């Protein structure tokens, strides 16, 4: 879906996961070095998607491949267990082992993947150094602040030398102030990661800042996909419009002019054809400065945003 790249490279997912009454059906790709944010409300299936990629949840149908090798294929029954997948997972609640020091938490993956304890600790120390956590090496996780724990969780995921990085709501457990610091830093680290990176969030700001591309998930389906700028400019659903701070007004387009059903007119430069359409109205976060979130504009006519 994105540009041209050698076939088989990067992550390719066609997932269907049935969990009781809920069904996730989503196709997502991510190229090497690309950061894809899966954005969606609670219950949209984001975490299920990550679980399927990590091997914590098997697919009901579909296929997951990374760089050409099959992780899960429901048609022929192929399944690679979570422990065998070269995946780094940063959990929303971090899940740092409470009985191990920070150093041993980060050394866990290299150690269980075959390195001697000493070598694994050396690798871990390298990562702690790189993420500016060296002085925390001896601490227990319960003595860390939220921001520190988040960084340690990232270091632990990276220390296993994964080919795919998965982050589940990486910043949601942080207070607003810490979040900004960690966010900036996280962007740098994600940019350094050579493989594909999938990050799940319900926070549009987080997605806009961290990701190269957005995939919007609603009720288990992908409703929109594109660069942050595209998604912000042309929100496909009410949910997306609200996320990016836009209201959608149903109306009838005649060239660039849209006659709104609720009365009034709006100009809509992106509308190319005539007919029914939704006109976005409100502040548009420009791709270069997406850092400030604004409340949705409330124009007098058509106060209720509706689906386009």
């Amino acid at each position: 879906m994105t540009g041209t790249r050698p076939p088989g490279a990067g992550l390719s997912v066609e997932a269907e996961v049935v969990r009781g009454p809920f069904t996730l059906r989503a196709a997502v790709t991510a190229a090497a070095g690309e950061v894809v944010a899966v954005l969606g409300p609670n219950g949209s299936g984001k975490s299920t998607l990550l679980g399927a990629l990590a091997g914590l949840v098997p697919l009901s149908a579909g296929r997951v491949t990374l760089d050409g090798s099959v992780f899960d294929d429901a048609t022929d029954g192929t399944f690679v267990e979570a422990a065998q997948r070269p995946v780094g997972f940063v959990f929303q609640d971090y899940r740092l082992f409470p009985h191990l020091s920070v150093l041993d938490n980060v050394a866990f993956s290299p150690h269980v993947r075959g390195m001697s304890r000493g070598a694994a600790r050396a690798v871990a120390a390298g990562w702690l150094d790189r993420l500016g956590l060296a002085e925390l090496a001896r601490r227990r996780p319960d003595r860390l602040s939220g921001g520190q724990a988040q960084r340690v969780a990232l270091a632990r995921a990276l220390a296993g030398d994964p080919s795919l990085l998965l982050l589940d709501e990486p910043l949601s457990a942080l207070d607003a102030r810490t979040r900004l610091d960690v966010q900036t830093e996280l962007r740098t680290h994600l940019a350094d990661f050579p493989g594909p990176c999938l990050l799940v969030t319900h926070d549009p700001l987080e997605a806009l800042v961290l990701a190269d591309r957005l995939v919007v998930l609603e009720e288990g389906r992908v409703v929109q996909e594109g660069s942050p700028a595209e998604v912000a400019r042309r929100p496909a659903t009410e949910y997306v419009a609200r996320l990016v701070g836009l209201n959608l007004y149903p109306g009838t387009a005649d060239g660039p002019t849209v006659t709104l059903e609720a009365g009034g007119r709006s100009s809509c430069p992106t509308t190319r054809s005539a007919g029914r359409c939704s006109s976005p109205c409100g502040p548009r976060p420009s791709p270069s400065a997406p850092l400030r979130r604004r409340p949705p504009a409330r124009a007098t006519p058509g106060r209720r945003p509706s689906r386009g």
Partner: protein
Amino acid sequence: MTSPAPGPRDRVSAPAAVRLTARERRRRAVTGGGSRSAPAPLLLPALVAVAFLVIPLVGLLVRAPWSDAWRILHGSQAAEALRLSLWTSTVATLIALVVGVPLAWVLARTDLPGLRVIRALVTLPLVLPPVVGGVALLLAFGRNGFLGRYLDQWFGITIPFSSTAVVMAETFVAMPFLVVTVEGALRAANRGYEEAAATLGARRMTVFRRVTLPMVAPSLAAGAVLCWARALGEFGATITFAGSFPGRTQTMPIAVYYALEADPDAAILLSLVLLLVSVAVLVGLRDRWLRSGAA
């Protein structure tokens, strides 16, 4: 509110007030919450319960022949019985750890068919009268038991009335304490850590060894202590299956029982020794015990 003239407001009666000492005010400010004094309907039965539990122990202390203690203990088979009790209950606990912890894991983490029945069966010794356990062991492993017969014929092994029988009787009665405690801890443990370990490349056995076990360690210790204490006090199954041969199968509780007929003073002293050992274990493991109780 000191209105001199009676007015319509006085019809609202003032809320009942108590006097708070400065000390009580400080306590409430620090610990929060309201009054800590217990209402009489709760306090009185609580005191009765404490008295009932403590008075017999006091009786033991009061009646003990302190002046002759050393001579009596030395003359009796106390040392032998104590040594036997300590090592058999320790071995029983070790056996329970080696097979009971995996059993607890299987009960907590798998959904094999018939697991409910197995759970009911392995917890049965908790409620089964120990004598029944002893009879059952005798019927299984006795010289004419359905397994014991072949042990005797093929290998010349006779279990009943040996120290092995003591260990088996104690394990039979005490292991469920460990299994139940550890299973509960495994069920309560956050599975998220195990998922995290899996994504970090740990296979299931590694997850168990490096994540699951350390996380349930406090409960494991509590369960092992419970198991050990129960094994130490085992009487009914032991005397049925192993008998009472001094030095071989006569454990402390059995020695106490027989001494009570022959030499009551010795019985009291032996009981005190057991009491001392139990208290020492409780005190020694108090921290872990309390922590696991809080968790």
